[in-house]
Protein backbone atom coordinates (compact mmCIF):
# COMPACT_ATOMS: atom_id res chain seq x y z
CA UNK A 1 0.00 0.00 0.00
CA UNK A 2 1.13 3.58 -0.47
CA UNK A 3 4.57 4.27 -1.80
CA UNK A 4 7.99 2.79 -1.32
CA UNK A 5 11.20 4.75 -1.08
CA UNK A 6 13.91 4.11 -3.60
CA UNK A 7 17.24 4.68 -1.98
CA UNK A 8 19.60 6.31 -2.70
CA UNK A 9 17.45 8.74 -4.70
CA UNK A 10 15.46 11.37 -2.87
CA UNK A 11 11.74 11.06 -2.66
CA UNK A 12 10.16 14.40 -3.21
CA UNK A 13 7.26 16.15 -4.80
CA UNK A 14 3.82 14.91 -3.90
CA UNK A 15 3.73 12.56 -0.96
CA UNK A 16 1.19 9.81 -0.61
CA UNK A 17 -1.16 10.85 2.15
CA UNK A 18 -2.64 8.44 4.67
CA UNK A 19 -6.28 7.55 4.02
CA UNK A 20 -7.77 9.62 6.78
CA UNK A 21 -6.38 12.85 5.45
CA UNK A 22 -8.26 12.65 2.18
CA UNK A 23 -10.13 15.78 1.42
CA UNK A 24 -8.75 19.17 2.34
CA UNK A 25 -5.20 18.08 3.09
CA UNK A 26 -4.78 16.63 -0.35
CA UNK A 27 -4.76 20.01 -2.03
CA UNK A 28 -2.13 21.63 0.12
CA UNK A 29 1.02 22.17 -1.85
CA UNK A 30 3.89 20.17 -0.42
CA UNK A 31 6.01 22.43 1.80
CA UNK A 32 8.97 21.89 4.03
CA UNK A 33 10.80 19.72 1.59
CA UNK A 34 14.09 21.27 0.55
CA UNK A 35 14.06 22.13 -3.11
CA UNK A 36 17.63 21.99 -4.30
CA UNK A 37 18.18 23.64 -7.63
CA UNK A 38 19.49 21.06 -10.05
CA UNK A 39 22.89 22.23 -11.18
CA UNK A 40 24.03 20.89 -14.51
CA UNK A 41 27.46 19.76 -13.45
CA UNK A 42 26.30 17.95 -10.34
CA UNK A 43 23.89 15.63 -12.08
CA UNK A 44 26.47 14.31 -14.45
CA UNK A 45 29.24 13.63 -11.99
CA UNK A 46 29.81 9.92 -12.09
CA UNK A 47 31.00 9.95 -8.47
CA UNK A 48 27.64 11.13 -7.26
CA UNK A 49 25.76 8.13 -5.96
CA UNK A 50 22.35 9.80 -5.62
CA UNK A 51 20.28 11.76 -8.08
CA UNK A 52 17.48 14.19 -7.46
CA UNK A 53 14.29 13.21 -9.15
CA UNK A 54 10.57 13.50 -8.73
CA UNK A 55 8.56 10.52 -7.58
CA UNK A 56 4.88 10.09 -6.89
CA UNK A 57 3.08 7.54 -4.82
CA UNK A 58 -0.08 5.53 -5.32
CA UNK A 59 -2.67 6.69 -2.84
CA UNK A 60 -5.28 4.31 -1.51
CA UNK A 61 -9.00 4.89 -1.85
CA UNK A 62 -10.57 6.17 1.39
CA UNK A 63 -12.44 2.90 1.90
CA UNK A 64 -11.86 -0.82 1.67
CA UNK A 65 -12.03 -2.29 -1.81
CA UNK A 66 -15.32 -4.06 -1.10
CA UNK A 67 -16.97 -0.99 0.42
CA UNK A 68 -18.78 -0.01 -2.75
CA UNK A 69 -20.48 -3.36 -3.27
CA UNK A 70 -22.87 -4.16 -4.86
CA UNK A 71 -22.68 -1.02 -7.01
CA UNK A 72 -19.02 -1.33 -7.83
CA UNK A 73 -17.56 -4.75 -7.17
CA UNK A 74 -14.44 -5.48 -5.21
CA UNK A 75 -13.06 -7.19 -8.31
CA UNK A 76 -13.43 -3.96 -10.26
CA UNK A 77 -11.71 -1.94 -7.53
CA UNK A 78 -8.91 -4.51 -7.32
CA UNK A 79 -8.28 -4.22 -11.03
CA UNK A 80 -9.09 -0.57 -11.52
CA UNK A 81 -7.07 0.66 -8.57
CA UNK A 82 -4.58 -2.17 -8.16
CA UNK A 83 -3.69 -2.50 -11.85
CA UNK A 84 -4.81 0.47 -13.94
CA UNK A 85 -4.20 3.23 -11.40
CA UNK A 86 -0.99 1.63 -10.17
CA UNK A 87 0.18 1.27 -13.77
CA UNK A 88 -0.26 4.98 -14.38
CA UNK A 89 1.77 5.79 -11.27
CA UNK A 90 4.55 3.36 -12.17
CA UNK A 91 4.67 4.58 -15.76
CA UNK A 92 4.79 8.19 -14.65
CA UNK A 93 7.66 7.51 -12.28
CA UNK A 94 9.53 5.69 -14.99
CA UNK A 95 9.14 8.70 -17.27
CA UNK A 96 10.21 11.09 -14.53
CA UNK A 97 13.54 9.36 -14.09
CA UNK A 98 14.63 10.81 -17.38
CA UNK A 99 12.63 14.01 -17.23
CA UNK A 100 13.62 17.46 -16.00
CA UNK A 101 10.19 17.92 -14.40
CA UNK A 102 10.68 18.32 -10.70
CA UNK A 103 9.18 19.83 -7.60
CA UNK A 104 5.58 19.97 -8.70
CA UNK A 105 2.45 18.98 -6.90
CA UNK A 106 0.33 16.65 -8.96
CA UNK A 107 -2.03 19.46 -9.95
CA UNK A 108 0.88 21.62 -11.06
CA UNK A 109 2.43 18.73 -12.95
CA UNK A 110 -0.75 18.23 -14.93
CA UNK A 111 -0.92 21.88 -15.97
CA UNK A 112 2.76 21.95 -16.86
CA UNK A 113 2.68 18.76 -18.91
CA UNK A 114 -0.56 19.76 -20.64
CA UNK A 115 1.57 22.45 -22.17
CA UNK A 116 -1.40 24.50 -23.37
CA UNK A 117 -2.82 21.81 -25.60
CA UNK A 118 0.42 20.30 -26.83
CA UNK A 119 0.78 17.68 -24.14
CA UNK A 120 4.15 16.30 -23.15
CA UNK A 121 4.50 12.52 -22.94
CA UNK A 122 4.14 12.62 -19.16
CA UNK A 123 0.72 14.29 -19.33
CA UNK A 124 -1.31 11.17 -19.91
CA UNK A 125 0.08 9.32 -16.94
CA UNK A 126 0.11 12.32 -14.62
CA UNK A 127 -3.45 13.30 -15.45
CA UNK A 128 -4.74 9.76 -15.10
CA UNK A 129 -3.07 9.42 -11.70
CA UNK A 130 -4.80 12.56 -10.53
CA UNK A 131 -8.09 11.68 -12.19
CA UNK A 132 -8.26 8.35 -10.45
CA UNK A 133 -7.36 9.80 -7.05
CA UNK A 134 -10.17 12.25 -7.56
CA UNK A 135 -12.51 9.51 -8.70
CA UNK A 136 -12.07 7.28 -5.64
CA UNK A 137 -12.76 10.27 -3.44
CA UNK A 138 -15.79 11.21 -5.47
CA UNK A 139 -17.44 8.03 -4.25
CA UNK A 140 -18.38 6.61 -0.88
CA UNK A 141 -20.24 3.72 0.61
CA UNK A 142 -23.82 4.84 1.09
CA UNK A 143 -23.39 7.59 -1.45
CA UNK A 144 -25.82 9.06 -3.88
CA UNK A 145 -29.08 10.53 -2.63
CA UNK A 146 -29.17 14.32 -2.60
CA UNK A 147 -26.55 16.97 -2.04
CA UNK A 148 -27.23 19.26 0.86
CA UNK A 149 -26.65 22.79 2.05
CA UNK A 150 -24.42 25.03 0.00
CA UNK A 151 -23.80 22.51 -2.75
CA UNK A 152 -27.50 21.95 -3.29
CA UNK A 153 -28.11 25.70 -3.30
CA UNK A 154 -25.43 26.27 -5.88
CA UNK A 155 -26.72 23.42 -8.04
CA UNK A 156 -30.24 24.80 -7.90
CA UNK A 157 -28.92 28.22 -8.77
CA UNK A 158 -26.90 27.04 -11.77
CA UNK A 159 -29.09 24.19 -13.07
CA UNK A 160 -32.55 25.32 -11.88
CA UNK A 161 -33.03 22.07 -9.99
CA UNK A 162 -31.16 18.99 -8.85
CA UNK A 163 -33.03 16.77 -11.28
CA UNK A 164 -32.08 19.08 -14.13
CA UNK A 165 -28.46 18.78 -13.12
CA UNK A 166 -28.77 15.01 -12.82
CA UNK A 167 -30.28 14.72 -16.30
CA UNK A 168 -27.56 16.94 -17.76
CA UNK A 169 -24.88 14.85 -16.11
CA UNK A 170 -26.33 11.54 -17.31
CA UNK A 171 -26.88 12.83 -20.85
CA UNK A 172 -23.37 14.18 -21.04
CA UNK A 173 -21.93 10.87 -19.92
CA UNK A 174 -24.05 8.92 -22.41
CA UNK A 175 -23.01 11.22 -25.25
CA UNK A 176 -19.31 10.69 -24.68
CA UNK A 177 -17.61 9.03 -27.66
CA UNK A 178 -14.72 6.78 -26.73
CA UNK A 179 -12.86 6.93 -23.42
CA UNK A 180 -13.15 9.88 -21.11
CA UNK A 181 -14.56 11.44 -17.97
CA UNK A 182 -17.60 13.44 -16.95
CA UNK A 183 -17.26 16.19 -14.38
CA UNK A 184 -19.24 18.59 -12.30
CA UNK A 185 -16.93 21.60 -12.26
CA UNK A 186 -16.95 25.06 -10.84
CA UNK A 187 -16.08 27.34 -13.73
CA UNK A 188 -13.68 29.92 -12.41
CA UNK A 189 -14.42 32.53 -15.07
CA UNK A 190 -18.20 32.20 -15.24
CA UNK A 191 -18.33 31.56 -11.50
CA UNK A 192 -20.88 28.84 -11.85
CA UNK A 193 -21.22 25.08 -11.74
CA UNK A 194 -21.25 23.25 -15.03
CA UNK A 195 -21.18 19.70 -16.41
CA UNK A 196 -18.15 19.03 -18.57
CA UNK A 197 -17.08 16.01 -20.59
CA UNK A 198 -13.44 15.28 -21.40
CA UNK A 199 -11.67 12.73 -23.61
CA UNK A 200 -9.09 10.20 -22.55
CA UNK A 201 -6.99 11.74 -19.76
CA UNK A 202 -7.93 15.38 -20.00
CA UNK A 203 -9.15 16.95 -16.79
CA UNK A 204 -10.73 20.37 -16.19
CA UNK A 205 -7.69 21.50 -14.17
CA UNK A 206 -5.94 22.24 -17.42
CA UNK A 207 -8.44 25.01 -18.14
CA UNK A 208 -8.18 26.39 -14.65
CA UNK A 209 -11.59 25.08 -13.60
CA UNK A 210 -12.20 23.37 -10.28
CA UNK A 211 -13.61 19.83 -10.42
CA UNK A 212 -16.21 18.98 -7.82
CA UNK A 213 -17.24 15.46 -8.89
CA UNK A 214 -15.65 13.13 -11.43
CA UNK A 215 -16.95 9.97 -13.12
CA UNK A 216 -14.67 7.59 -15.02
CA UNK A 217 -16.28 6.62 -18.33
CA UNK A 218 -13.42 4.49 -19.60
CA UNK A 219 -14.78 1.02 -20.26
CA UNK A 220 -12.50 -0.55 -17.68
CA UNK A 221 -14.37 1.38 -15.01
CA UNK A 222 -17.66 -0.43 -15.54
CA UNK A 223 -17.29 -3.28 -17.95
CA UNK A 224 -16.93 -6.09 -15.42
CA UNK A 225 -19.98 -4.94 -13.47
CA UNK A 226 -22.24 -3.54 -16.16
CA UNK A 227 -20.86 -4.84 -19.48
CA UNK A 228 -22.10 -2.43 -22.14
CA UNK A 229 -24.94 -0.97 -20.05
CA UNK A 230 -23.44 2.48 -19.54
CA UNK A 231 -26.74 4.05 -18.63
CA UNK A 232 -27.14 1.71 -15.66
CA UNK A 233 -23.59 2.45 -14.50
CA UNK A 234 -24.09 6.21 -14.68
CA UNK A 235 -27.44 6.10 -12.91
CA UNK A 236 -26.05 3.83 -10.22
CA UNK A 237 -23.21 6.27 -9.69
CA UNK A 238 -25.65 9.12 -9.23
CA UNK A 239 -28.04 7.17 -7.03
CA UNK A 240 -25.69 5.12 -4.88
CA UNK A 241 -22.04 6.06 -5.18
CA UNK A 242 -21.40 9.77 -5.59
CA UNK A 243 -20.05 11.34 -2.43
CA UNK A 244 -21.73 14.67 -1.76
CA UNK A 245 -19.51 14.96 1.33
CA UNK A 246 -16.47 15.11 -0.90
CA UNK A 247 -18.27 17.55 -3.15
CA UNK A 248 -19.02 19.81 -0.19
CA UNK A 249 -15.40 19.81 0.95
CA UNK A 250 -14.26 20.64 -2.55
CA UNK A 251 -16.81 23.42 -2.93
CA UNK A 252 -15.64 24.89 0.38
CA UNK A 253 -12.10 25.00 -0.86
CA UNK A 254 -13.16 26.27 -4.27
CA UNK A 255 -14.93 29.23 -2.71
CA UNK A 256 -11.56 30.40 -1.42
CA UNK A 257 -10.55 30.88 -5.04
CA UNK A 258 -13.79 31.82 -6.72
CA UNK A 259 -16.08 34.50 -5.40
CA UNK A 260 -19.55 33.05 -5.55
CA UNK A 261 -21.22 36.13 -4.16
CA UNK A 262 -21.74 37.67 -0.78
CA UNK A 263 -22.71 35.23 1.94
CA UNK A 264 -26.24 35.75 3.16
CA UNK A 265 -25.59 37.15 6.61
CA UNK A 266 -28.83 38.00 8.36
CA UNK A 267 -28.94 41.62 9.49
CA UNK A 268 -30.14 42.23 13.03
Amino acid at each position, binding site marked *: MGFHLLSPSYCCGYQASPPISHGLLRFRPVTGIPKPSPQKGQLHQSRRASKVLAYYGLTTPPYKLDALEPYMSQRTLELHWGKHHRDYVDSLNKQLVKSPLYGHTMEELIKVTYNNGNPLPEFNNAAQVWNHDFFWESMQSGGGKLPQGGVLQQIEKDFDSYSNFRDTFVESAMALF*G*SGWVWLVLRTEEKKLSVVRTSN*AICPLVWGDIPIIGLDMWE*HAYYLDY*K*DDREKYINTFMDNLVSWHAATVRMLRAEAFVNLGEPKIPVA
Partner: protein
Amino acid sequence: MALRAIAGKKTLTLGLGFGPSGAAAAASFPGLGSGLHARGLVTFSLPDLPYDYGALEPAISGEIMQLHHQKHHQTYITNYNKALEQLEEAMTKGDSSKVVHLQSAIKFNGGGHINHSIFWQNLKPANEGGGEPPHGSLGWAIDTDFGSLEALVKTMNAEGTALQGSGWVWLALDREVKKLKVETTANQDPLVTKGANLVPLLGIDVWEHAYYLQYKNVRPDYLKNIWKVMNWKYASGVYEKEVA
Protein backbone atom coordinates in the same frame (compact mmCIF):
# COMPACT_ATOMS: atom_id res chain seq x y z
CA MET B 1 -16.94 -9.66 -49.17
CA ALA B 2 -16.70 -6.87 -46.71
CA LEU B 3 -18.73 -4.79 -49.10
CA ARG B 4 -21.56 -7.28 -49.00
CA ALA B 5 -21.60 -7.12 -45.24
CA ILE B 6 -21.58 -3.33 -45.12
CA ALA B 7 -23.82 -2.62 -48.07
CA GLY B 8 -27.13 -1.21 -47.07
CA LYS B 9 -30.29 -1.96 -48.89
CA LYS B 10 -33.03 0.32 -50.01
CA THR B 11 -35.26 -0.84 -47.27
CA LEU B 12 -38.19 0.60 -45.49
CA THR B 13 -37.14 -1.03 -42.25
CA LEU B 14 -34.88 0.58 -39.69
CA GLY B 15 -32.71 -2.51 -39.82
CA LEU B 16 -33.03 -3.16 -36.10
CA GLY B 17 -32.25 -6.53 -34.57
CA PHE B 18 -30.21 -9.33 -35.99
CA GLY B 19 -31.92 -12.74 -36.38
CA PRO B 20 -31.86 -13.95 -39.98
CA SER B 21 -29.69 -11.97 -42.33
CA GLY B 22 -30.81 -8.42 -42.90
CA ALA B 23 -32.17 -8.85 -46.40
CA ALA B 24 -34.27 -11.85 -45.47
CA ALA B 25 -35.66 -10.04 -42.47
CA ALA B 26 -36.67 -7.12 -44.61
CA ALA B 27 -38.41 -9.46 -47.01
CA SER B 28 -40.37 -11.21 -44.30
CA PHE B 29 -41.45 -8.01 -42.57
CA PRO B 30 -42.30 -5.70 -45.41
CA GLY B 31 -44.61 -3.60 -43.31
CA LEU B 32 -41.99 -2.62 -40.73
CA GLY B 33 -41.47 1.10 -40.66
CA SER B 34 -42.99 1.64 -44.05
CA GLY B 35 -43.44 5.22 -45.00
CA LEU B 36 -40.62 6.34 -42.76
CA HIS B 37 -38.14 6.63 -45.57
CA ALA B 38 -40.23 7.84 -48.43
CA ARG B 39 -37.12 9.00 -50.28
CA GLY B 40 -35.48 5.59 -50.00
CA LEU B 41 -32.77 6.45 -47.47
CA VAL B 42 -30.39 3.56 -47.25
CA THR B 43 -30.11 2.26 -43.71
CA PHE B 44 -28.05 -0.55 -42.31
CA SER B 45 -28.46 -3.71 -40.33
CA LEU B 46 -26.21 -5.96 -38.35
CA PRO B 47 -24.28 -8.36 -40.57
CA ASP B 48 -24.11 -11.98 -39.42
CA LEU B 49 -20.87 -13.35 -38.14
CA PRO B 50 -19.39 -15.95 -40.50
CA TYR B 51 -18.78 -18.24 -37.47
CA ASP B 52 -20.27 -19.06 -34.08
CA TYR B 53 -19.66 -16.80 -31.11
CA GLY B 54 -17.54 -19.45 -29.43
CA ALA B 55 -15.57 -20.41 -32.51
CA LEU B 56 -12.67 -18.05 -31.83
CA GLU B 57 -11.92 -19.48 -28.40
CA PRO B 58 -9.59 -19.56 -26.60
CA ALA B 59 -8.19 -16.44 -28.28
CA ILE B 60 -11.40 -14.48 -27.84
CA SER B 61 -14.15 -15.75 -25.58
CA GLY B 62 -17.66 -16.43 -26.82
CA GLU B 63 -19.04 -14.05 -24.20
CA ILE B 64 -17.02 -11.18 -25.63
CA MET B 65 -17.90 -12.04 -29.22
CA GLN B 66 -21.59 -12.10 -28.42
CA LEU B 67 -21.59 -8.81 -26.52
CA HIS B 68 -19.32 -7.21 -29.06
CA HIS B 69 -21.54 -8.21 -31.97
CA GLN B 70 -25.05 -8.06 -30.52
CA LYS B 71 -24.64 -5.05 -28.30
CA HIS B 72 -21.77 -2.84 -29.33
CA HIS B 73 -21.91 -3.23 -33.11
CA GLN B 74 -25.71 -3.17 -33.05
CA THR B 75 -25.68 0.07 -31.08
CA TYR B 76 -23.37 1.71 -33.60
CA ILE B 77 -25.72 0.65 -36.40
CA THR B 78 -28.82 1.85 -34.57
CA ASN B 79 -27.30 5.23 -33.82
CA TYR B 80 -25.82 5.50 -37.30
CA ASN B 81 -29.24 4.97 -38.84
CA LYS B 82 -30.72 7.52 -36.47
CA ALA B 83 -28.08 10.07 -37.39
CA LEU B 84 -28.60 9.42 -41.09
CA GLU B 85 -32.32 10.01 -40.77
CA GLN B 86 -31.72 13.23 -38.91
CA LEU B 87 -29.16 14.23 -41.52
CA GLU B 88 -31.58 13.62 -44.34
CA GLU B 89 -34.18 15.74 -42.62
CA ALA B 90 -31.70 18.53 -41.98
CA MET B 91 -30.47 18.46 -45.55
CA THR B 92 -34.00 18.63 -46.88
CA LYS B 93 -34.69 21.62 -44.70
CA GLY B 94 -31.38 23.24 -45.54
CA ASP B 95 -30.51 23.39 -41.86
CA SER B 96 -26.76 23.81 -42.17
CA SER B 97 -25.92 24.01 -38.51
CA LYS B 98 -27.78 20.77 -37.87
CA VAL B 99 -26.04 19.13 -40.82
CA VAL B 100 -22.63 20.07 -39.48
CA HIS B 101 -23.60 19.20 -35.92
CA LEU B 102 -24.49 15.67 -36.96
CA GLN B 103 -21.08 15.00 -38.47
CA SER B 104 -19.47 13.77 -35.27
CA ALA B 105 -22.29 11.31 -34.60
CA ILE B 106 -22.05 10.02 -38.16
CA LYS B 107 -18.28 9.71 -37.99
CA PHE B 108 -18.43 7.89 -34.69
CA ASN B 109 -21.31 5.53 -35.32
CA GLY B 110 -20.73 5.09 -39.03
CA GLY B 111 -17.07 4.50 -38.33
CA GLY B 112 -18.02 1.97 -35.69
CA HIS B 113 -20.16 0.11 -38.22
CA ILE B 114 -17.48 0.17 -40.91
CA ASN B 115 -14.69 -0.90 -38.58
CA HIS B 116 -16.55 -3.73 -36.96
CA SER B 117 -17.83 -5.06 -40.26
CA ILE B 118 -14.23 -5.38 -41.39
CA PHE B 119 -13.19 -6.82 -38.03
CA TRP B 120 -15.60 -9.77 -38.17
CA GLN B 121 -14.26 -10.59 -41.63
CA ASN B 122 -10.63 -10.50 -40.64
CA LEU B 123 -11.07 -13.03 -37.86
CA LYS B 124 -11.44 -16.74 -38.48
CA PRO B 125 -11.61 -19.82 -36.26
CA ALA B 126 -8.27 -21.60 -35.93
CA ASN B 127 -9.68 -24.81 -37.33
CA GLU B 128 -10.85 -23.00 -40.46
CA GLY B 129 -7.50 -21.46 -41.29
CA GLY B 130 -7.36 -18.66 -38.75
CA GLY B 131 -3.80 -17.79 -37.85
CA GLU B 132 -2.31 -19.32 -40.97
CA PRO B 133 0.38 -16.94 -42.18
CA PRO B 134 -0.11 -15.16 -45.49
CA HIS B 135 1.31 -16.68 -48.64
CA GLY B 136 1.65 -15.24 -52.08
CA SER B 137 1.95 -11.57 -52.85
CA LEU B 138 0.89 -10.29 -49.45
CA GLY B 139 3.49 -12.49 -47.75
CA TRP B 140 6.20 -11.09 -49.98
CA ALA B 141 5.00 -7.53 -49.46
CA ILE B 142 5.19 -8.02 -45.69
CA ASP B 143 8.74 -9.31 -45.95
CA THR B 144 9.68 -6.38 -48.17
CA ASP B 145 8.08 -3.65 -46.10
CA PHE B 146 8.63 -5.01 -42.59
CA GLY B 147 11.39 -7.61 -42.89
CA SER B 148 9.32 -10.49 -41.63
CA LEU B 149 5.86 -11.41 -40.40
CA GLU B 150 7.20 -11.45 -36.82
CA ALA B 151 8.43 -7.90 -37.20
CA LEU B 152 5.03 -6.78 -38.47
CA VAL B 153 3.22 -8.49 -35.61
CA LYS B 154 5.65 -6.95 -33.13
CA THR B 155 5.07 -3.47 -34.58
CA MET B 156 1.32 -3.80 -34.58
CA ASN B 157 1.26 -5.13 -31.04
CA ALA B 158 3.51 -2.32 -29.83
CA GLU B 159 1.31 0.30 -31.49
CA GLY B 160 -1.81 -1.35 -30.15
CA THR B 161 -0.46 -1.45 -26.62
CA ALA B 162 0.73 2.14 -26.71
CA LEU B 163 -2.60 3.49 -27.91
CA GLN B 164 -4.09 5.69 -25.21
CA GLY B 165 -7.80 5.41 -24.68
CA SER B 166 -9.87 3.69 -27.34
CA GLY B 167 -9.06 3.01 -30.96
CA TRP B 168 -7.90 0.60 -33.62
CA VAL B 169 -4.59 -0.59 -35.00
CA TRP B 170 -4.47 -1.36 -38.72
CA LEU B 171 -2.39 -3.09 -41.32
CA ALA B 172 -2.96 -0.75 -44.21
CA LEU B 173 -2.10 -0.71 -47.87
CA ASP B 174 -1.24 2.66 -49.32
CA ARG B 175 -2.74 2.08 -52.75
CA GLU B 176 -0.88 4.95 -54.34
CA VAL B 177 2.63 3.88 -53.49
CA LYS B 178 1.70 0.22 -53.10
CA LYS B 179 3.33 -0.03 -49.69
CA LEU B 180 2.13 -1.62 -46.47
CA LYS B 181 1.85 0.51 -43.35
CA VAL B 182 0.85 0.15 -39.73
CA GLU B 183 -1.56 2.86 -38.60
CA THR B 184 -3.66 3.60 -35.57
CA THR B 185 -6.92 5.47 -35.39
CA ALA B 186 -8.63 6.91 -32.33
CA ASN B 187 -12.11 5.98 -31.15
CA GLN B 188 -14.09 4.76 -34.16
CA ASP B 189 -12.33 6.80 -36.82
CA PRO B 190 -12.11 4.66 -39.92
CA LEU B 191 -8.69 4.13 -41.49
CA VAL B 192 -9.47 6.52 -44.30
CA THR B 193 -9.25 9.41 -41.83
CA LYS B 194 -5.51 8.77 -41.72
CA GLY B 195 -5.18 9.02 -45.50
CA ALA B 196 -7.50 8.75 -48.47
CA ASN B 197 -5.18 6.21 -50.12
CA LEU B 198 -5.21 3.80 -47.23
CA VAL B 199 -7.01 0.49 -47.64
CA PRO B 200 -7.58 -1.59 -44.50
CA LEU B 201 -6.24 -5.13 -44.77
CA LEU B 202 -6.48 -6.05 -41.11
CA GLY B 203 -7.88 -4.16 -38.15
CA ILE B 204 -7.55 -4.95 -34.46
CA ASP B 205 -10.07 -3.41 -32.07
CA VAL B 206 -8.24 -2.22 -28.97
CA TRP B 207 -11.24 -0.70 -27.25
CA GLU B 208 -11.43 -2.25 -23.80
CA HIS B 209 -14.76 -3.86 -24.61
CA ALA B 210 -12.94 -6.02 -27.16
CA TYR B 211 -10.92 -7.85 -24.51
CA TYR B 212 -11.63 -6.72 -20.97
CA LEU B 213 -13.86 -9.54 -19.77
CA GLN B 214 -11.23 -12.07 -20.71
CA TYR B 215 -7.87 -10.34 -20.50
CA LYS B 216 -8.73 -7.58 -18.02
CA ASN B 217 -6.10 -4.86 -18.21
CA VAL B 218 -3.52 -7.04 -19.94
CA ARG B 219 -3.95 -5.74 -23.46
CA PRO B 220 -0.61 -7.20 -24.63
CA ASP B 221 -1.90 -10.74 -24.02
CA TYR B 222 -5.00 -10.05 -26.11
CA LEU B 223 -2.83 -8.72 -28.91
CA LYS B 224 -0.53 -11.72 -28.70
CA ASN B 225 -3.41 -14.18 -28.94
CA ILE B 226 -5.54 -12.54 -31.58
CA TRP B 227 -3.01 -13.47 -34.25
CA LYS B 228 -4.02 -17.09 -33.74
CA VAL B 229 -7.40 -16.31 -35.28
CA MET B 230 -6.32 -13.78 -37.86
CA ASN B 231 -7.84 -14.29 -41.27
CA TRP B 232 -4.90 -13.68 -43.57
CA LYS B 233 -6.89 -15.01 -46.52
CA TYR B 234 -9.19 -12.01 -46.25
CA ALA B 235 -6.25 -9.63 -46.09
CA SER B 236 -4.59 -11.32 -49.06
CA GLY B 237 -7.81 -11.08 -51.04
CA VAL B 238 -8.13 -7.35 -50.45
CA TYR B 239 -4.45 -6.81 -51.18
CA GLU B 240 -4.42 -8.75 -54.42
CA LYS B 241 -7.46 -6.94 -55.70
CA GLU B 242 -5.82 -3.58 -55.04
CA VAL B 243 -2.44 -4.30 -56.57
CA ALA B 244 -3.79 -6.21 -59.54
